């Protein structure tokens, strides 16, 4: 162990700091002496490709080889590396690279997750299979058409609605909420609308035009139980048909696949419970 600093000067530090400095010096010496070349760890990426702008193009799976020693640990790192170094035309959505924006939602190794949070599997023989979100119209390569999903989100009116508040009074007084009422929103507000859950639901696959899907339903529930919102009964009345919420058969793929660890299946169950005994007369005006 080569002590770079004179031992006399080390004594001015606390024992803990001294130990830390010695560790750092040892480690830098070791890594400086480490060999530069490593055996390349090649991983195959099987990625769904389709370009509608190329006439007559059919969807196919293209294989790329990535050296994992030169790549970050997440699938998104691999995709960016492929796009930068191997194939510029690979198209996918991405933004925050930290699992908060929801842009990079895709089907990886059979699971709907965020590419920026899903580690490249280290099984040496297997490839990483990257497909777009299932049963969504594909704009190009891994980019799904989210317009139906967003329209459904808009339809549940995901904003605070109050009764007996004039437009002129908005913003004057803050709407207070108890700690317990605020705690009811935990596990609901964190949804980033990545659509992983909705696109994992078979009911949503077969009826995405009429069934809202777990993501949107969880947000509907989030507004139903917000104590500051006055339109709970009307929001429940919006669900009064055979399709909007009642196509859920508690398959629970949604909760299993949520990359943020949320529980849309439970939220839908709570909606059904609320629907059992809410005051329908109060919402008659909504119809």
């Amino acid at each position, binding site marked *: 162990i080569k002590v770079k600093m004179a031992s006399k000067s080390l004594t001015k530090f606390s024992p803990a700091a001294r130990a830390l400095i010695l560790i750092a010096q040892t480690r830098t010496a070791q890594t400086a002496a480490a060999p530069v070349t490593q055996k390349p760890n090649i991983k195959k990426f099987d990625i769904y490709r389709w370009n*509608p*702008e190329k*006439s*007559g193009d059919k969807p196919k799976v293209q294989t790329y080889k990535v050296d994992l020693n030169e790549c970050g640990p997440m699938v998104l790192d691999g995709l960016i590396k492929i796009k930068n170094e191997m194939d510029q035309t690979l198209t996918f959505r991405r933004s925050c690279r930290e699992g908060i924006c929801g842009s990079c939602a895709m089907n990886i190794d059979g699971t709907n997750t965020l590419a920026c949070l899903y580690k490249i599997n280290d099984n040496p023989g297997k490839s990483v299979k990257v497909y777009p979100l299932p*049963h969504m*119209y*594909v*704009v*190009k390569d891994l980019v799904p*058409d989210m*317009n*139906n999903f967003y*329209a459904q989100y808009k339809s549940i009116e995901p904003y605070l609605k109050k009764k007996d508040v004039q437009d002129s009074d908005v913003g004057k007084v803050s709407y207070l909420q108890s700690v317990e009422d605020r705690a009811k929103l935990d596990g609901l507000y964190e949804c980033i609308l990545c659509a992983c859950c909705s696109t994992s639901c078979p*009911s949503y*696959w*077969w*009826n*995405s*035009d*009429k069934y809202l899907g777990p993501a949107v339903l969880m947000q509907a529930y989030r507004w139903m139980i917000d104590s500051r919102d006055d339109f709970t009964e009307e929001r*429940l009345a*919006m*669900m*009064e*048909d*055979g*399709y*909007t919420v*009642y*196509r859920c*058969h508690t398959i629970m793929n949604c909760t299993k696949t949520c990359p943020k660890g949320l529980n849309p299946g439970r939220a839908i169950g709570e909606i*059904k419970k609320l*629907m*059992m005994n*809410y005051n*329908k007369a109060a919402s008659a005006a909504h119809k």
Partner: protein
Amino acid sequence: MASVMLLKSCSRGSRSLLLQMRSQPQWDCTSVTSKPFTASSSLAVIEYFRARRGPFSPEEKRGKSHIMDASTHWKVERFIAIGMVGLMPAALFVQGPIMDHVLTTFIFLHGFWGIDGVLKDYLIKFVPWIGKLWYLLAIVGFAGLVNFNFNDVGVCKAIQMIWSL
């Protein structure tokens, strides 16, 4: 502009996009959503199996006439499902015309609403009249069962007879 046309055709499938791209110079920008030039039989097939239709208004989703609200219907469905858990063992001890009618009604409604749900999930969007056909079949079936309960041995006795074969 190309991306807007791309997105607008997304919900109509890739085939319509290809047809659009080919005949683009003849069209002006406002006719993106109009019908494509050629009406080949394969396009008709694609349209028939279209996954996403609509958009549907709340009135369309609700349907024309219902005996119960959807939430009440759901409540009754679960009540009958849980009720059967108690009813079936009870039928081992208590038989008679009342048990006949109650058992028939519970099991029949459970099965009818169950198949109705299956049809709603998979078939109704392709074959809209299948729901009405099932309803018709169910009425005939229920009439037959009620007749069996009244003018014949009744379901409890019938099960006993089958069991003793």
